[in-house]
């Protein structure tokens, strides 16, 4: 006899075996190494590290390999690993002012001290498929050691030559010098840690920024976009975007000084926004902030826009757009949470569905019952429902 849902255990094993084969692909093709992924699919690795909240290129590459290139699945893998790691300390805040810059641009000033450094950007490339990459060899565009180098790579070289140990002044500081940038959100005491304390509403800015930093890139871009085209009035300018390397330091109690643990690559975006001022305060600029591990520039820009939108309440602005509603944004921006809950609909719901089924049937009985009493029911319908209506009719009377 057929027995409902037996054999789950065996089915799972078979499915996972099938998945492993799918993941490997045809065996005549050489397997990808995590190192190749880390080197050649670096931006994918950066995204996985950022939203996975763990700076580990090798493990992020492994996650991408295991997830067959599915970023959200890879992010999930990395998060699930991260959660098991013990904490041995909290680093001192990274000093992005002292960044060893690879890219640094400002859209608010034509030139700034230190100059504009394009760095390795897709900007200004023509989005033409480079069929040379399909062939065995590499496109010559990617080598910039020869004398026939392209404009892009020359620019990059110039940028590199201007990369030196002297720190780049932060563009927003020029506005601060003129007191044109609203100073706010001084952190009082220790920053919250959203991985150790549940988010509480109203959520302070440190909690908001942490949540946005690991938020889904796509979700943030859509929200940021919505603020630009009518669902928000933040009038943004990209004050500065910088990408490069910063030291991570840990204060060692026993030694009494900071110890450098190593360098990480980060991208940072300062967005400058209009603020009309109010009765207490003169007109000035406000800012939104975005940051990521690696080179996730699009993400940091979107994050900065959303960060600014979420300041609406503190700035006394009307909170009437999705991107300005902290609970809406922060509760739904994490793709590990969101994808989990959406995909859980695949799980069996027989019991709940059974309950709903019984209810719909009962309501239909009552529907036909009342129609019948009103004499509006055709004879066919009556036949169909006749046997069912007696009981409920009696109980309702």
């Amino acid at each position: 006899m057929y027995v409902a849902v037996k054999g789950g255990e065996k089915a799972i094993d078979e499915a996972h075996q099938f998945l492993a084969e799918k993941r490997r692909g045809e065996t005549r093709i050489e397997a990808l190494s995590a190192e190749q992924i880390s080197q050649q699919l670096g931006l994918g690795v950066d995204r996985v590290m950022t939203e996975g909240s763990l700076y580990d290129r090798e493990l992020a590459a492994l996650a991408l390999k295991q997830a067959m290139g599915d970023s959200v699945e890879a992010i999930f893998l990395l998060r699930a690993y991260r959660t098991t790691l013990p904490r041995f300390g909290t680093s001192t805040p990274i000093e992005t002012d002292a960044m060893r810059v690879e890219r640094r641009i400002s859209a608010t000033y034509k030139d700034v001290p230190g100059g504009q450094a394009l760095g390795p950007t897709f900007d200004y490339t023509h989005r033409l498929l480079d069929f040379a990459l399909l062939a065995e060899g590499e496109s010559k565009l990617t080598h910039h050691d020869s004398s026939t180098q392209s404009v892009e790579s020359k620019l990059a070289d110039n940028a590199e030559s201007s990369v030196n140990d002297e720190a780049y002044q932060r563009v927003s500081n020029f506005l601060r010098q003129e007191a044109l940038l609203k100073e706010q959100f001084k952190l009082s005491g220790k920053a919250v840690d959203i991985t150790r304390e549940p988010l509480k509403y109203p959520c302070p800015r440190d909690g908001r920024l942490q949540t946005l930093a690991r938020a889904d890139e796509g979700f943030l871009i859509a929200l940021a976009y919505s603020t630009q085209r009518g669902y928000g009035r933040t009038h943004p300018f990209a004050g500065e975007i910088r990408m490069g390397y910063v030291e991570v330091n840990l204060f060692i109690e026993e030694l009494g000084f900071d110890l450098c643990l190593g360098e990480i690559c980060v991208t940072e975006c300062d967005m400058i926004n209009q603020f009309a001022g109010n009765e207490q305060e003169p007109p000035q600029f406000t800012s939104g902030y975005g940051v990521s591990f690696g080179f996730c520039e699009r993400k940091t820009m979107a994050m900065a826009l959303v960060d600014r939108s979420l300041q609406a309440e503190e700035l006394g602005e009307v909170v009437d757009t999705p991107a300005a509603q902290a609970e809406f944004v922060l509760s739904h921006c994490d793709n590990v949470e969101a994808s989990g809950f959406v995909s859980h609909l695949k799980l069996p719901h027989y019991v709940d569905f059974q309950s709903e089924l019984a209810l719909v049937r009962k309501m239909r009985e009552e529907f036909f019952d009342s129609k019948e009493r009103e004499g509006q029911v055709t004879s066919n319908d009556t036949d169909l429902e006749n046997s069912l209506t007696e009981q409920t009719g009696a109980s309702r009377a």
Partner: protein
Amino acid sequence: MPNQSEYNFAYLDEQSKRTIRRGLLKAVAIPGHQVPFAGREMPMPYGWGTGGVQVTASILGADDCLKVIDQGSDDTTNAVSIRRFFDKTALVETTTDTEAATVIQTRHRIPEQPLTNNQILVFQVPIPEPLRFIEPSESETMKMHALEEYGVMHVKLYEDIAHHGHIATTYAYPVHVNGRYVMDPSPIPKFDNPKMHMSDALLLFGAGREKRLYAIPPYTDVKSLDFDDHPFEIQQWDQSCALCGCEHSFLDEVIVNDEGERMFVCSDSHFCQQRVNAKLNMSEAVEV
């Protein structure tokens, strides 16, 4: 799972488990009250039982015996997956026998067989806030709980009656716990609600994505919301189980062929199996 040895007993580190246990103690002390806790990412997706898994991981000891059910059955894929997870990360004994288990993790059901006071039932909870679909804002619902402002819930149930003639909630049916908090019992069918009242077993609820814990300690008053003229009632079937003949269990409907013929079987697979076995033994005994 790779590198088992690199993970702690029951996956989570001891500090995290202790944090969760502290939250659980508070939850037990204030029956039905939602306690925020620092939920951890788990290696299964949110919405697939991470809250329940974290609670189970925190309370599990080496000598515990674990049973995991989903929709009442030990053999549904997600139940298998979670049971295996603890089998591997905690090396605890696992069982499908309701009576033998000390900890039972469940999704959407309470076992048919009454539980005892040395058992803990851990529920997986998707949306812990019973008022969520009436009031989407967390800040607001927190205030409503604090002020015991549950009028809206009764209004919702009343509107059901006005529109449909009866309360149109069949699962995740809200309960009033210990005369104080209105609580979401997780999406169990309302059929199971009465089992929570004065339960011998400790009932723990974990919502991983929403990061909330709550509890019903043993022998607590649990009342399903209703009205004097519309008393709470549970689902009933005209059919009995096609396998064991049970007439008082929750039945799943199974479509057996393309013509849409149906069969009803117990949703609690262990309960059903036991009854089938007992019948077989009886008939054998008669033959002898």
